[in-house]
């Protein structure tokens, strides 16, 4: 009669012991420890993903506790999986943060080189202009000269005509105030318009997709207006200049990277044809529909 009770008690003890026994390895936990070690050793993670690596460590500690002290294999494996994904996420955030920082330096270097190339091109254009005979220029010659001027401005031909793009860097941050670095470009555009009185321009401001639509529209309109005013100040009739802000529409690059956002923050100056006609804008941006510059 005593036997069944004792059997039950011994059995229950064995079950409990089974719960408490720590097996030799748990693959999920091993994998989590490995991913955490790798992430932890990465200086980019320390710098750009301190919060995420902390979360990974805490979750890994919880997993270790469940495994070692509570013997809850299923929960330990679940927590270990989360810890591993968090460690991998921290690693990716580190890679991302570091790349974005590199992009900042590389963009500055690129802008510097563009300015350098532009300065050289314009000195070539000036030499050519000086060598040109002083007699009245024919329409064809004026068009050729306009083309040379625009080439010096890094203008590019689009479906709508010739476009000169003023990058974000010629404006103060989040402001419509033009920096001194814009002066040579604006002088050139004003000269081109003075030499070609039949041409008109359409000035369009754009922003990236960060922030509120209304603010983006406002900033882009104010920037376009500032460029228009700068040309008027240089003696170009306001009648010949249209200006509008288009906000974040018509992106020319992805808005998901800092570099792409910078390309999207711009003012475009579209030149009319020799009859003063301006082409209307197609319905969407060039990004995705055309190869990126």
């Amino acid at each position: 009669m005593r036997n069944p009770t004792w059997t039950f008690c011994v059995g229950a003890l064995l079950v409990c012991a089974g719960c408490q026994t720590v097996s030799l390895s748990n693959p999920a936990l091993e994998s989590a420890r490995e991913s955490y070690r790798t992430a932890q050793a990465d200086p980019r993670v320390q710098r750009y993903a301190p919060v995420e690596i902390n979360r990974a460590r805490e979750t890994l500690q919880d997993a270790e506790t469940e495994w070692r002290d509570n013997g809850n294999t299923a929960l330990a494996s679940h927590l270990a999986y989360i810890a591993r994904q968090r460690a991998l996420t921290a690693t990716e955030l580190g890679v991302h943060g570091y790349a974005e920082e590199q992009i900042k330096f590389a963009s500055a270097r690129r802008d510097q080189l563009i300015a350098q190339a532009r300065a050289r091109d314009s000195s070539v254009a000036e030499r050519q202009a000086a060598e040109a005979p002083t007699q009245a220029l024919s329409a064809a010659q004026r068009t050729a000269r306009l083309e040379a001027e625009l080439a010096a401005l890094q203008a590019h031909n689009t479906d709508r005509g010739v476009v000169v793009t003023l990058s974000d860097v010629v404006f103060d941050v989040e402001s419509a105030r033009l920096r001194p670095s814009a002066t040579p470009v604006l002088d050139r555009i004003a000269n081109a318009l003075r030499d070609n009185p039949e041409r008109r321009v359409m000035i369009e401001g754009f922003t990236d997709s960060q922030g509120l639509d209304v603010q983006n529209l406002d900033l882009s309109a104010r920037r376009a207006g500032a460029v228009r005013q700068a040309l008027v100040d240089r003696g170009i009739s306001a009648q010949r200049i249209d200006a509008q802000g288009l906000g974040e529409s018509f992106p020319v690059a992805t808005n998901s990277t800092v570099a792409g956002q910078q390309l999207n923050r711009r003012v475009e100056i579209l030149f009319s044809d020799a009859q003063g006609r301006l082409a209307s804008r197609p319905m969407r941006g060039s990004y995705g529909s055309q190869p990126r510059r």
Partner: protein
Amino acid sequence: MKHRLAISIAAVVAAALLLAACAVAPAAPTAQLTAGRTAVDQARMAGAIEAAPIEYDAARTKLLRAEGAYQARAYTLATQLAREAEADALLAQARTNAIRSQQALVEINADIRALQSEIDRANRGG
């Protein structure tokens, strides 16, 4: 006889308590499901389907299984799956952003090389 019966009852009660402690009825994991769904949506909007398809698929599959478990009132399972889905989706998004920014960096560096060689060529040519 009575004594033995008492021991048996005590053992049964103890066992029942032990089981109950293991399986505390969990709350419905609506917050975890919402967090998982949000993370999966954000990963998709970041472009994870192309850039991190393995992690994104894992996240989506687990989210669907979590929703199934939730329907079946298997709340513990639903909670775990939703949390794993969220972790997978956050990883997918981080990986996507990392790949994108590295690509952007490669492009800018290519621009720099092209500009530099253009300038060098121009300087050599006078």
